[in-house]
């Protein structure tokens, strides 16, 4: 395998509390190849969003990079100076956020917010940049872009705003697109459109995607490989099909079981959806041993006392569970 586009190695993210430092994320490693779509899945609060922010170099107090390496195209960027990171951000790694309602400046026309990318990274003048912004809007299939570039965010629907976000992110043809729950705030029908659009545009431009979501089904559809995160650690990583066929970690199994299936109710009658009991522990109170042990159906004594090591699975997969290997 040639050098991956992005290599995250043993990432640790520190959360500064009152005199104590917690590890919000630790031992997180993954690789994304050129043009590859990689999914990071987990419940709210498991550390996937801050992992994305760490890759972008956008961690802000009280969060900070505690250790590990982030390598973009062979170049270590975790300690890169601010000016260097600014050149990378937007140009080589771009990001789409969860809330299209608030992620755009309400007082600035959307065209201008796209045009900024060309002004910042390609030294274009505003007039050319606006022309190109119109073209960018056309690419994300916003109807009548020549009028829409002058619209303000509040004049667009949620789906349209997310299209604008995609236009912004892909404006300078980045190598990597970090998409943090890009469809969570949207209607289900719009979700599919946005995902398809993202997948299509990224495939056309050869852009790799780091897709972050709590929706395993959605991620598995779009991504070749999927990693499942729980309480700040990656607990399982496999090829997308294999995750569904042979989930190896009890948590992954739980996530798959709790996906509602169409027609299930007709077949088996009205039943409560399966769930994983309990909630994600807070960063300040991670349990000892395997962090999933208080919620795990297969828990044994060893799970409570020691943290499991990584066990290799076929096809570069891995799982972090005592009951494997």
């Amino acid at each position, binding site marked *: 395998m040639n050098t991956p586009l992005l290599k995250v190695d043993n990432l640790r993210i520190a959360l500064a509390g009152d005199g104590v430092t917690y590890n919000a994320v630790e031992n997180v490693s993954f690789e994304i190849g050129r043009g590859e779509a990689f999914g990071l899945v987990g419940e709210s609060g498991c550390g996937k969003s801050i992992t994305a922010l760490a890759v972008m170099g956008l961690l802000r107090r009280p969060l900070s990079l505690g250790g590990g390496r982030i390598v973009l195209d062979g170049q270590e960027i975790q300690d890169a100076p601010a000016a260097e990171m600014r050149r990378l951000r*937007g140009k080589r790694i*771009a990001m789409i*956020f969860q809330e299209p309602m*608030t992620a755009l*400046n309400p*007082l600035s026309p959307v065209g201008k917010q796209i045009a900024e990318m060309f002004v*910042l990274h390609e030294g274009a003048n505003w007039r050319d940049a606006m022309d190109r912004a119109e073209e960018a809007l056309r690419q994300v299939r916003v109807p009548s872009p020549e009028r829409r570039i002058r619209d303000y965010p509040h004049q667009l629907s949620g789906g349209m705003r997310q299209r604008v976000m995609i236009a912004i992110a892909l404006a300078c043809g980045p190598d990597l697109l970090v998409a943090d729950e890009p469809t969570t705030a949207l209607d289900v029908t719009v979700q599919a459109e946005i995902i398809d659009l993202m997948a299509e545009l990224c495939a056309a431009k050869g852009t790799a995607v780091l897709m972050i979501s709590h929706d395993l089904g959605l991620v598995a559809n779009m991504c070749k490989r999927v990693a499942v995160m729980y309480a700040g650690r990656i607990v399982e990583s496999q090829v997308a099909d294999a995750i569904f066929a042979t989930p190896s970690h009890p948590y992954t199994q739980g996530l798959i079981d709790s996906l509602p299936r169409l027609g299930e109710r007709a077949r088996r009658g009205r039943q409560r959806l399966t769930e994983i009991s309990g909630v994600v522990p807070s960063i300040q109170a991670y349990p000892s041993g395997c962090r999933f042990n208080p919620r795990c159906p297969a828990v044994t004594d060893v799970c409570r006392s020691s943290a499991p090591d990584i066990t290799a699975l076929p096809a570069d997969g891995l799982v972090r569970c005592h009951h494997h290997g």
Partner: protein
Amino acid sequence: MLLVLGRRLANVVPTMLAVVALVFLLFSVLPGSFISGMNEDGRSTIDPAVMERMRKEMGLDDPLLERFAKYVGHTAMGDLGTSFRTREPVTKMLSTRIWPSLKLVLAAMTFAILVGVTLGFLAALRPGSWIDTASMVGAISGLSLSQFWFGLMLMYLFALKLQWLPSFGYGDGGLRHIILPAVALGVGPMALLARTTRAAVLDVLNADFVRTARSKGMSERRVVEWHVLRNALVLVITIVGLQFGSLMGQAVVVEKLFAWPGVGSLMVDSVFQRDMPTVQGCILMIVLFFLAINTLVDLAYVVIDPRIRYR
């Protein structure tokens, strides 16, 4: 734009009516009148027959409602009545007072905006730095100071000790005379603006769209110029408007202290003498100013915030 203006102006008339009614009511329950006041302060003893005639002449014997109706009618036609004290039309007295008052209020507000907004911005961009701490301590002091005491201290330092500026009076109406009263009047709004600007900028700096801006690879300076300033301005303008509008009312103390010939000092003098038509005229002026500033603020919103334009 016109819609906003129209809606605003439609509010002016009922507000003014309510204010006039309130002042009328207050004066009717207040003990004493202009004429009894003349006797009380011992300046003269007036023959009861003369007093009776004066009461009639000034219309003080008429029923309250009748006097109110008459006053409203006259006011609507631009006649604010005649001062009991000087026997001059109130409109004429006000006309010589309004310009000095406006000048003082404008100067105070300019000072408050320039210093307050600047300090607030600097403090927010460097939270926890010495400039943040210093300006916020300054702001708290500014808010807690009494105008009266602060004005006296200004006079003491800059007029008496340093002799840089005149201590009181309108003089030729130039800059030298206006500085001290303007600072005394503006220090309160300045402090409030420093605090609210800081809060507004910090608020905007934490907004999602600022994170988006950072993810685009903008320098922090560009982020502030392109995305933070305007958004923070929307919040700041509310406070500017409220402070600005009420400043002419607040100016009463400062005008009196610095012997500034404005509406405020005229009002204080008239209150002491129960010169009701003049007091009413002054209050109307102050309220009108408040409403005018509020209208301007509403229009400013429309210009700055597109979300309001299309509502």
